[in-house]
C-alpha cells in the first residue's frame, strides 16, 4: 500500500507539489488525471527519488518503508517501478543483459540467489509472451532506436520482469497505435495483482476503458482536488478541468 501525506515538492526553487495526499491500497489501480503541467510526472519522479526534486514537507511510505530515507536504487529494489513517460535510450547496453542485472540486483537486495542464465531466459520468454513483444526487440540495445510504441512495450516488459509492489505508469498510452494500446493494456491487466498498487497517469478515457481503475484522482496545481470512481474520468472527458479550478 502506498501512502502519501501532505507532500510538498520544489524543483529549482519552484513549488510544484503543494500538499498532495494519496493512498493506493495493495491490489488497486488508481488513475491520476490532470491538466498539462499540474505535477503528475513530478509526482512520479519524487516517488522514484529523482535528484533535484526536493521534498520540503510530507511523507511517502510503502508498507513499512519510508521512501524518503531511500536512494533511487534502494527504492527500486524495494519494489518501486516507474514506467517513464519518455523512456531513456541507453546505446551500447543490451536490453537483456540490463534486465538480468536489474533483476539480480533486486534479488540480491532481498537476500535471494542470482538467477542463472537458463532460468532468466525462461522467465523472459514467459513475460515477452505476456506483453506481446518479440525476442528480437528484447535483445537489442536498450531503447536505442526503438519506436515510441516499442519503448512503451519495453517498459511493461521490465515491469513484468521486476514484479514491483508499486508501479507508476506515466502516460503509458501516449504514442501508441490502437493495437499497441490494446497489447499494453492487456499486459498491464495481466499484471494486476493483490500484492501490487498501481498508479496510472493518463489524459485519456480510452486507456481507462482498457484498464479499469478502482479510483480516479484529479491532480491540479500540485494538489489532489477531487476523487471518485471510474465514472469521474468520463465526466472529466466531457467537462474538462475548469469546473474543478473554481472549487
Amino acid at each position, binding site marked *: 500500500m502506498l501512502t502519501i501525506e501532505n507532500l510538498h515538492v*520544489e524543483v*529549482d*526553487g519552484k513549488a510544484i507539489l503543494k500538499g498532495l495526499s494519496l493512498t493506493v491500497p495493495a491490489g488497486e489501480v488508481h488513475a491520476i488525471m490532470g491538466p498539462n503541467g499540474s505535477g503528475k510526472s513530478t509526482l512520479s519522479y519524487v516517488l*522514484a*527519488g*529523482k*535528484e*533535484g*526534486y*526536493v*521534498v520540503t514537507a510530507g511523507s511517502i511510505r510503502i508498507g513499512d518503508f519510508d521512501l*524518503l*530515507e*531511500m*536512494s*533511487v*536504487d*534502494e527504492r*527500486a*529494489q524495494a519494489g*518501486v*517501478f*516507474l514506467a*517513464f513517460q519518455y*523512456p*531513456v*535510450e*541507453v*546505446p*551500447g*547496453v*543490451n536490453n537483456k*543483459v*540490463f534486465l538480468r*542485472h*536489474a*533483476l539480480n*540486483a*533486486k534479488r540480491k*537486495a532481498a537476500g535471494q540467489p542470482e538467477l542463472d542464465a537458463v532460468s532468466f531466459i525462461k522467465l523472459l520468454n514467459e513475460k515477452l509472451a505476456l506483453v506481446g513483444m518479440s525476442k528480437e526487440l528484447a535483445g537489442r*540495445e536498450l531503447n536505442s532506436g526503438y519506436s515510441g510504441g516499442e519503448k512503451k512495450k519495453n517498459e511493461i516488459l*521490465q515491469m513484468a520482469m*521486476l514484479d514491483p509492489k508499486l508501479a507508476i505508469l506515466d502516460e503509458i498510452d501516449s504514442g501508441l497505435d490502437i493495437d499497441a494500446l490494446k497489447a499494453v493494456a492487456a499486459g498491464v491487466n495481466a499484471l494486476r495483482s493483490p500484492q501490487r498498487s498501481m498508479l496510472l497517469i493518463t489524459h485519456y478515457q480510452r486507456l481507462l476503458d482498457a484498464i479499469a481503475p478502482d479510483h480516479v484522482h484529479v491532480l491540479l496545481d500540485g494538489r489532489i482536488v477531487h476523487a471518485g470512481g471510474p465514472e469521474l474520468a468520463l465526466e472529466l472527458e466531457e467537462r474538462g478541468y475548469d469546473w474543478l479550478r473554481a472549487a
Partner: protein
Amino acid sequence: MVASPTPNPAKPSASRETIDAIAGQGYDAGFFTDIEADAAPPGLDESIVRFISAKKNEPEWLLAWRLQAFALWQKMDEPRWAHVDYPPVDFQAISYYSAPKALTSKKLEDLDPEERAQYDELMRTYERLGVPVNERGKLAGNEIGVAVDAVFDSVSVITTFKENLTRAGVIFCSLSEAVREHPELVRKHLGSVVPATDNYYAALNAAVFSDGSFVYIPKGVRCPMELSTYFRINAKGTGQFERTLIVAEDQSYVSYLEGCTAPRRDENQLHAAVVELVAHDDAEIKYSTVQNWYPGDAEGKGGIYNFVTKRGLCKGRGSKISWTQVETGSAITWKYPSCILKGDDSIGEFYSVALSNRRQQADTGTKMIHLGRNTRSTIVSKGISAGHGLQTYRGQVRIAKAAEGARNYTACDSLLIGSTCTADTVPYIEVANATASVEHEASTSRISEEQLFYLMQRGLSQEDAVSMIVNGFCKDVFRVLPMEFAVEAQKLLDVSLEGSVG
C-alpha cells in the same frame, strides 16, 4: 552532469556520498615491495650506458649500438606536440638501473637464508598482483596455460614454461638472455622496426634499455600457449626502459599479452619502452596490453609518465598484426601502436580502450602505413574521459602510392562522464593511391543524468549503472581480447571509474 544545486535533504542519492568517499582510491596494485636492490646512482651520461651494458655482460656491438643512440639522443629535443601538459622531465634525477639483489646467478637451492627470504618476497609481489609466476599451476592463469616473463624494475626475474615452449621451438626469454643465447637473431632484428633515430624516447630507450622480453616463433609453428610479460616498477626514483622484440617467421602465430603496474607514489616516474614486432609471410601476431600503471591521485600528484613506441612490421605477404590495448593507468600516456603494412595483402588492426579519469592525460592512437597492395587496416578506438581527464585520439592513416587497393576503416568514439573532462580526435589521413578506400567514423557521447536515473530506477547502483554503460561502449574492443584479459579489463575499468560520477 547537471548537478542539483539543492540536493534532497532526505537522502535521494546515498550512492553519491559513497562514491565520493572512495574517489581517488581503488588502485590495488599501489603497494611497494621492500627488498634490497642493486641500483645505479641517479643521472645519465655515457658511463651509465656503459654500466648497464657491463651489468649484462653485453657484446661489444650492442654497447656500440647503445652509445650511438645515446649520442643521438643528446642532440634531440623532447617532443612537445602531444596534447598533454607536464613539467619538463629531469633526466638527471632518474636512476636508470635497479635490480633486486636476490637475483644472483646462484641456483635457488644455493641461496643463503637471507637471500632466500628476499627472493620469496619478490615472488610474493607477483602473487599479490595475481600474476602466475609459479608453474605448479596453483594460480588461475597457469591452469589455462599462460607462460609469463616477469620484469621487475630493470630486470626479468623469472620466465615460466620455458621447457614446454622450447619443445615447440619457441624462444621466450628475457631480452638480456636472448642477447647471450641468440645473438644473431637479436642483432638482426633489434632496431629494425623502431630505430633509435625514430624519436626522442626511442633513442633514450636504445641507450639505456635494461630488460624486456624476446619472442621467436619459428616457421609454421603455432605457439602452444599465450605468452605474457608482466612489468612492475617498484624502486623509488627509477625509470623503466624495457624493450620487447617479437619475431614471427612464415606461417607462425603467437598471442602475446602484457600487463603493467607500479606503487602509489607522490613523484612521477618515467616509463619509456619500445616494442618491435616483425611478421613474415602469413604470420600473425596478436599483441594485447592491459596498462594499469599508477595514474596519480585525484589532484594529479604522482603517477607514471608512459612514453612508449610500439610498432609492428607486416613484412611478409599476408601477414597480420593486431594491437589491442586497454589503457586505464598512467598520469600521462603518449603512445601510438602502429603497423607498417609492407607485405601485399597484409593486415593491421588496432583496438583500443583508453580511460582518463581524475587528472590523467592521454594522447594515444595509432598509425597504419599502407605500403603493399591490397593491404587492409581496421582501427577501433574507444576513449573514455571522466573527472578532469584529458583524452586525445591521434591517428594516422597513410596510403602510399604503390598500395593499390588498400583499405582502411576507422571508428573513433569518445564517451564523456561528467562535465569537467575533455576528449579530442585528431585524424591524419593521406591517400596517394586513387584505388584506395578510407572510411572514418567518429562520435562523441556523454553519459547523462537521465540515463543513470533510468538504470538506477530499475535497481542498479550508480557504479553498476556507469559500469554497464561503459562496458557497452567498449564491447567492440573487449570482444577481441583474450577471454581472461577481457574479464580483467572490465574489472579494471570499473575500479578506475570509481568516483567518476557525482
